């Protein structure tokens, strides 16, 4: 058993109102740069709908994720290593910018520069790819709120799996929103597709990242990811993806998308899992068994054997404590209401979802019944097989049973809590009908409905002492790094890799202690930090002073 820690997320779809605040704040934080105009690390899709990029879930077309070969072993659906290298010059499975959308801006200057005329000038759209005037015909969220659904929704790859007859009545029945980020999979097919080895899974917290210095732009990760959550920056020629806001979570803050979520529907926590068993679990023959297989890889953080094994792997105590308090573990195991997105891709995704119950209640109320009565609700869940079939295609590879069980639990919670709200006596039988206790239902209600900040986000901080062990406390000489001493690379002063912070500090301190002039201390050896220079004039220290030359 090799215990590893993984940061994971659960989203409660019942509470998503489709406001796109997560997408917008994420974009402002991460992808508001040239080359990433079309890149949405976080996007919110209306289901049924085509998704982003269009029909990305159709793996017969895009070949993302893994499949089993004839011998029952895992192989990349887009082909093995040799096939990848032979198709490297032109990747036949890469989405074009048209499959996303051609980003645009508006010719705002025209509003000011247009000459006096009878008609109000109009800011016309211009493509950000070509700079030419363009006609906007698609975007990241063109089918938001079922816009154009009669034409567009039939192309939903998930909907096509559910039968035609279902489709029509289903469209009238409901829609819901599906916010998506990178799944930070346990068995990531993007990492496995990267020819240069630039993509990696962080061993401390399982965040999947792209090393921008090693990425060579071979584009295989875009193909490999079945969720199409690795994007190609068309200006830099490098892959970029959701970072799980690692600079934030390292200091214990939730991701930007979670922090700004209006509906408070996102939960972040640690999961312990057995890395040795991931491949085995991802190779289970029956797709419908993959949900249970993934659960079986995750370990119980309360189990003394697991705790001992985790300690042996060097997982810090506070991380183990966070794993025990993890809302993710509670939602997946104790309450059993979270399900993975498309387990059939065999990547072991780590962003899970609580399927929406609301449409069921609404539909039931419309028919004149009491939509929150336990008996009515249980009956309706079984009667309304249409949404269950669709949800099952999303979350359990088509197996309706786990989805039904989750919906029954959510329905039971509503009925149970309504009785309490109306001042009636708690009805333990409602909880018992779904295999829970009244106490458990109330605890689940607290986590799902009240969702206190500190319980939604249980994020252990990165360990400062691990960094310090490499930095200040290193037993080597502080000058024996590459290029030192003298801090000059082969191309003169300030060339070569940046000096370690400890060395910069050392020199600054020495200047202050031994220098003639106290002002010189913060001049950092006669140089200026170009990151803070606005490009105007020549600030003192931009060029080093010659020895003995009087400073101005």
């Amino acid at each position: 058993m090799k215990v590893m820690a993984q940061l994971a997320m659960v989203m409660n779809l019942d509470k998503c109102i489709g406001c796109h605040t997560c997408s917008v704040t994420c974009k402002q934080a991460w992808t508001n740069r040239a080359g990433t105009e079309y890149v949405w690390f976080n996007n919110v899709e209306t289901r049924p709908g085509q998704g982003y990029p269009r029909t990305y879930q159709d793996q017969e077309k895009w070949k993302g994720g893994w499949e089993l070969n004839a011998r029952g072993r895992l192989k990349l659906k887009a082909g093995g290593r040799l096939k990848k290298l032979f198709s490297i010059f032109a990747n036949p499975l890469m989405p074009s910018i048209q499959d996303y959308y051609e980003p645009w801006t508006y010719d705002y200057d025209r509003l000011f520069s247009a000459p006096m005329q009878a008609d109000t000038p109009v800011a016309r759209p211009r493509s950000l790819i070509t700079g030419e005037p363009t006609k906007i015909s698609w975007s990241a969220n063109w089918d938001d709120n079922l816009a154009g659904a009669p034409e567009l929704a039939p192309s939903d790859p998930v909907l096509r799996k559910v039968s035609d007859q279902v489709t029509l009545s289903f469209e009238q029945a409901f829609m819901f929103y599906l916010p998506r980020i990178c799944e930070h999979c346990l068995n990531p097919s993007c990492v496995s597709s990267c020819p240069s080895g630039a993509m990696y899974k962080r061993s401390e917290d399982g965040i999947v990242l792209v090393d921008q210095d090693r990425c060579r732009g071979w584009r295989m990760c875009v193909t490999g990811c079945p969720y199409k959550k690795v994007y190609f920056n068309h200006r830099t020629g490098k892959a970029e993806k959701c970072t799980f806001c690692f600079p934030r979570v390292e200091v214990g803050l939730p991701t930007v998308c979670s922090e700004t979520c209006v509906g408070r529907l996102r939960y972040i926590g640690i999961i312990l899992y057995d890395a040795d068993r991931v491949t085995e679990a991802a190779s289970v023959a029956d797709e419908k068994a993959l949900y249970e297989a993934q659960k079986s890889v995750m370990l119980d953080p309360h189990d003394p054997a697991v705790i001992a094994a985790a300690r042996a792997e060097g997982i810090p105590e506070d991380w183990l404590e966070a794993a025990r308090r993890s809302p993710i573990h509670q939602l997946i195991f104790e309450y059993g209401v979270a399900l993975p997105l498309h387990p059939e891709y065999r990547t072991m995704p780590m962003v899970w979802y609580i399927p929406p119950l609301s449409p069921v209640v609404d539909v039931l109320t419309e028919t004149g019944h009491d939509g929150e009565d336990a008996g009515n609700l249980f009956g309706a869940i079984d009667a309304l097989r249409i949404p269950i079939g669709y949800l099952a295609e999303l979350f359990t590879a088509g197996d309706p049973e786990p989805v039904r069980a989750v919906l029954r639990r959510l329905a039971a919670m509503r009925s149970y809590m309504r009785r309490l709200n109306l001042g009636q006596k708690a009805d333990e039988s409602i909880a018992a009908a779904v295999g829970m206790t009244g106490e458990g239902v109330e605890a689940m209600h607290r986590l799902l409905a009240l969702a206190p900040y500190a319980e939604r986000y249980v994020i252990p901080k990165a360990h400062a002492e691990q960094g310090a062990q490499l930095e200040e406390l290193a037993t080597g000489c502080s000058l024996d790094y590459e290029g030192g001493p003298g801090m000059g690379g082969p191309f003169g002063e300030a060339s070569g890799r940046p000096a370690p912070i400890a060395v910069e500090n050392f020199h600054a301190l020495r200047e202050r202690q031994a220098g003639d002039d106290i002002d010189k201390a913060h001049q950092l050896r006669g140089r200026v930090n170009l990151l803070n220079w606005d490009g105007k004039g020549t600030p003192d220290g931009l060029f080093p002073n010659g020895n003995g030359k009087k400073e101005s």
Partner: protein
Amino acid sequence: MKALDVVLWVVAPYVALTVFVLGHVWRYRYDKFGWTTRSSQMYESRLLRIGSPLFHFGILVVLLGHIGGLVIPKSWTEAAGISEEVYHLVAVVLGTIAGVATLGGIAILIYRRRTVGPVFTATTRNDKLMYAVLALTIVLGLAATVMANIVGGGYDYRTTISPWFRSIFYFQPDPALMAGAPLLFQLHALSALLLFAIWPFTRLVHMLTAPVGYLTRPYVVYRSRDEQRAGARDPRRGWEPTGAVTEHRSK
């Protein structure tokens, strides 16, 4: 021996090779972020799917041909029982096919680059220079082969150009060998030297990081967070601190 010969066939190759090697070292140290193919497939893939494999597989065969022709001495192939006639036939047939494929490929790619709006917008001046020198080198090389073998009676470059090429790496350059070669071969060699000199500063650097390691590495790559911490460095071998793990385990 004329001074010009020394400049062209001794000085120029060493300058080009020095720039090639040091340029790559410099680029790798200072511009890892810029070390990429800068693929334009997102913008256009229909022409790319024909042109790019045609060019790349063509140039790989051309590269192998150059290694076989320039690096392996004639005496070796003869010792292996390959006569000059057989070698010549194979080299000309394979070389011409690969050369035409390469030329066709780069023609499609340049046409695509010029005519497809987004691709042309993403083309830098550096790219244009690189395309010009690369295309020139390919055209001259193909022309030299065609002129010497198909129009002319054949030219055994393995007694002149190849020894000159190897003499550079022995540090005993012999410009006289090259001075007597046909003009087209000379021009091809010169344009190749120019290509090597600009190579490290163009997108061609992607060739040096061809991902052959992918064939042997495990699928999923794990990396520790600490490797990338700003200013951090690994302790020297033998100087790893003790108790780094036990420290927080005992807390």
